[in-house]
């Protein structure tokens, strides 16, 4: 019997070694350890043994069983690993096949530029205002110091809804300055983006409807140096640290002193190229210290308070930001254009 057990052990271990897969191994397990297995058959003969032999033989049989079970487990692990490896090999994919498309929508490039601007100003404590596009000429012009006779009031320049030129499509976002002064508590820090309208035929650089962002600060001791500092900060955030700017005297009826702000041409670095028409600078926005008369008309004492304001064209900002050459693309809304942003 001892010999039998040793034989079984040797045979079984050798057979396990040979097993090619888990199913074969399981068959072997049944063959040796199953109810009708060889080991079990040997054990059934235990009864025939003497009482002295039995414990030693029992122990031996158990040892054989344990050895076989251990070997099965070990082999099974090996075979499992092998099977997994095979499966993974079989499941390998062509990773260059394109993914299943997820179609995401795109923000319009002009609104991307606007949102950037908004975030910068909101971070500096500005509130974003929204106002009417059908506006009173009084707010668009008179209250902004553009009196009767100012060329921008001409019917050739501005859209009107009545013969008295009272109600119009705002030609600038600047009436929002007046609306803010009339309704808000001082100090004021606002930006007001929105649509504006001018009587320009559509071409590569003109559109009868376009967008501006107005900005305004009114507080005690506000200076032109603050205007420069704030706008420089904005430009650095938009175009990167170290972007060079310059300020030029200009004229707007509602600011004095007035200025225009240029950024150094990104293309030529200021040497002069077709992008900047040889000037080395690109006009970015108009700004200035709020005209004392404008403050007075809104009941703000210019001796106590001062302020600055600016206006920036959004289309041009977006066009520069994304190198869009033709303004018409902005309003054409071709999905092949929109999906580039």
């Amino acid at each position, binding site marked *: 019997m001892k010999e039998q057990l040793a034989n079984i052990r040797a045979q079984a271990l050798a057979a396990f070694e040979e097993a090619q897969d888990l199913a074969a191994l399981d068959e072997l397990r049944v063959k040796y350890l199953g109810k009708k297995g060889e080991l079990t058959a040997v054990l059934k003969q235990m009864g025939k043994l003497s009482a002295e032999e039995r414990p030693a033989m029992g122990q031996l049989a158990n040892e054989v069983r344990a050895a076989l079970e251990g070997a099965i487990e070990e082999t099974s692990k090996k075979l499992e690993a092998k099977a997994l490896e095979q499966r993974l090999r079989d499941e390998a994919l062509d990773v260059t096949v394109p993914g299943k498309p997820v*179609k*995401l*929508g795109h*923000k*319009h490039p002009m*609104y991307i530029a606007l949102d950037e601007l908004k975030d910068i*100003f*909101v971070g*500096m*404590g*500005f*509130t*974003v205002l*929204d106002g009417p*596009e*059908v*506006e*009173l000429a009084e707010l668009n012009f008179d209250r902004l110091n553009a009196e*009767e*006779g100012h060329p921008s009031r001409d*019917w050739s320049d501005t*859209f*009107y*809804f*009545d013969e008295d030129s*009272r*109600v119009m*499509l705002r030609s600038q976002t600047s009436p929002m300055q007046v609306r803010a002064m009339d309704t808000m508590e001082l*100090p*004021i*820090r606002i930006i007001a983006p929105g*649509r504006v309208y001018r*009587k320009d*035929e559509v071409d590569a650089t003109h559109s009868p*409807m376009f967008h501006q962002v107005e900005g305004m600060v009114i*507080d005690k*001791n506000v*200076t*032109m*140096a603050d205007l*420069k*500092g*704030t706008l*420089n900060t904005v430009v650095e955030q938009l175009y990167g640290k170290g972007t060079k700017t*310059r*300020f*030029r*005297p200009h*004229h707007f009826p509602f600011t*004095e*002193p*007035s200025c*225009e702000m240029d950024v150094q041409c990104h293309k030529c670095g200021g040497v002069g190229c077709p992008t900047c*028409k*040889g000037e080395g600078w690109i006009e970015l926005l108009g700004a200035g*210290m709020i005209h*004392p008369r404008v403050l007075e008309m809104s009941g703000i004492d210019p001796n106590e308070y001062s302020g600055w304001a600016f206006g920036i064209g959004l289309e041009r900002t977006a066009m520069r930001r994304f190198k869009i050459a033709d303004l018409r693309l902005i309003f054409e*809304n*071709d*999905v092949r254009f929109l999906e580039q942003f």
Partner: protein
Amino acid sequence: MNLSRKWLGEFVTVDANDKDFAEAMTLSGSKVELTHDLGEEISNVVVGKILSMERHPDSDHMWVCQIDVGQEEPVQIVTGAWNIHPDDMVPVALHKSTLPGGKKIEKGKLRGVVSNGMMCGLSELGLDTRDFPYAVITPAALLNDYHPLDKDKPSIPADIQPGHKIFGSVVCARITAVRCDGVNAYTAACEVGSGSVSVSTNCANLHAGDLVALDTKKEHICTLEDLRAQQAEFPHCIPDGIFILHEEGVKPGDDLKPVIGADDHVVEFEITPNRPDCLSVIGLAREVSATYEVPLRLHEPVVKGGAEGNLVELLDVETPAADLCPRYTTRMVRNVKIAPSPKWMRERLRAMGVRPINNIVDITNYVMLEYGQPMHAFDYRYVKGGKIIVRRAKEGEELTTLDGQVRKLTANHLVIADETRAVGLAGIMGGENSEIVDDTTDVVFESACFDGTCIRKGALALGMRTEASAKFEKGLDPMNTLPAVNRACELVELLGAGEVLDGVIDILNYVPQPRTITMDPDRVNALLGTEIHPVDMYRYLERVDICTPEKNFPNGPAPVVIPSWRADVVGIADLAEEVARFYGYNNIPTTLMLGQTTLGGYSPAQKLEQTLGSVCRSCGYDEIITYSFISPTYYDKILWPADYAARKSFKILNPLGEDTSIMRTTVLPSMLEILTRNYNYRNKSAKLYEVGRIYLPGGEDGLADERKVLSMGAYGEDMDFYTMKGAIEAILKEIRAENVHFEAPTGAPSDASYHPGRCATVWSGSNCIGIFGQIHPLVARNYGVDGELYCAELNFDALMNARGADPEYTPLPKFPAVTRDIAVVCDEAVTVGALEAAIRKGARGLLKEAALFDIYRGKGVAEGKKSVAFNLILRADDRSLTAEEADADVKAILEVLEQDCGAVLR
């Protein structure tokens, strides 16, 4: 405003090159748009003197010339032009030279003869006869150039010989010699067979050996016109040729550019409307002088006068419209000789973009450019009664202006009239009836100041904005009229264009008074954020003639006198700008704002707008921007009933065109237009959105009630009603709208735009948010689209109201759910919504979710019926459900489905 730097040089000396000049002027406030070197394209072109001419051996019309160009050896040039003669001074483009238009000249051979360059005509130099009136060429009809139109019937026989009669007193003559007597003046010796005569002529194309038609009676060499011949008959006798220079002091080898005025540089300024004084050479010279701190050399006009007659007796001026005419200044010139003005004046006018006409007109333009004061010249003989009356026009009064147009006037127009009629439209344009013509002898110069608003409105009403009116409307300096009229008279004397009468008529309808305001250096520093010393400030101001009467520069506030031409300077802010301009905007420090902190941020509405955008984009919709104005016909296109009240729109009275003439009351046409455009571009699919405004009548102050609408639109393969519905459900879910349900359209007239069976209104409780669905096929057809278009219009305010409360955590289920699928068969007419309602009604508190997963029609389901399958999820929060409990609930649900909807388990 164009500025000739040569002209500028008369008043200030600045050596800077164009680029530096442009930059310095721009930074001191006079924005330079561009600079232009007039001679940029001309190089290596010199004055040459023709030494000799020989006929080309192989050509019947070309000449081989030897030309002295100031070099050791003369150069040989072949030309086809016939208007030149030995000793003529001509422009010579040498080998390797350039001409306007990018033309390059190099040596070559013309019919085998070497030509080392080219002699130039006016047009080749970018000029015409208005620039050099003396360069008009009159060709004679050369009989040796005669080419009969009909070879069989020549008007002039080919073998014609000197002395042969042509017609009347006209005979054939042979030129034996030509002598140049001056500008376009020649003496030609002619042999007429029987003898010879010497004839004066202005024809420039005569050379020894030529045959001409000589009118023996008039002693005149005939031109084509004299022979009534066509150009084709004399193909080389053309009024074009080489530009023969008649300029004092030029010699061979001289650079041509200064000779023709192409050595000037022109600077184009953008002048802002507050600085009309800068619309003149002197005004800009003031700015240049202030910018560069160089002295300004102003010139005081000196008029000799002394013409016969008494101004006051000849002319009387009345200004009944005194309110519209602050000043009217006039002088008179007699014995005028209309002629071209001299070269220097023509050059300057041309450099500034003004066409030279004749001496008197050129003088008025010259003074307008130099002083910024529009001038007008009348022919005195047409000023009836010797009286000039500045009055308002009579209603309906007519005047033919210089451009030949008959203008119908109103009482709002200001006219210059004589006793009987208007002779000019004040400040806008003169009348044809008093125009300066070739035989004008007595001229009245008007130099006036008119009310800017009156001129602007008058010009606008007639649609004729002129250079003069553009200046007047900005408000001119009344102090300028007298020096300007004197300058004009000085120029008349300088040009020898006439004799100036002594005296000036000068009507002042206002009291000229120097304006004084207070300068406060501290306030200027406070505004600018600078620490500029007061003395420096007064020094900056003095540069632009804003001076304090005090002897030394004060250290504090002081009065300053504003010059008459600076009407724009009225307060401390204006003075601050003047100081800043010369201190340098870029020297002002940059600081960050101090003061009370403000809380920036976005309002709830702005945040909602951001949310809507981000959900739309995550559903695959691209953002668009559409025009707010549309055509009224678009309401027809979207099938709105003709009497629909919502068609009432804000109407633009002066639109660019009908397509942009009213403010939209619906976003639908805008979206459809963009969908259609993409469809026409053959883009396979498009999903678009916009948060756009509509403009409804009835807002405050007569303004619009502007409302925002979330507009969505889509087409394409994967697009159907339920796809769009899914996006809308996603939006409503994102804003946590409660009680969302979809219903049939409400029957509003605007529903007509949608497919009646494929559109729905969107609700949150009793709040109607909007409508969406497939666009009516007829609407799509109106847009030329034969596919299905889907749109949604969701009211922004309603979306605001539909926003649910902030989410509150509900514990996750602890016990497993039981799922049951049921399929019920019901009539076609029963909606899924009704079935869902029945399911919810029948559930006994265990149903957590009922999700539609299939609708089936066909085999196994009776005609007119459908099978609808739901997946039910049942769960109790406090225990694991048993199958029996779940089945009991499902049974109850099935009972209600049968009772309420007649739906039975399949």
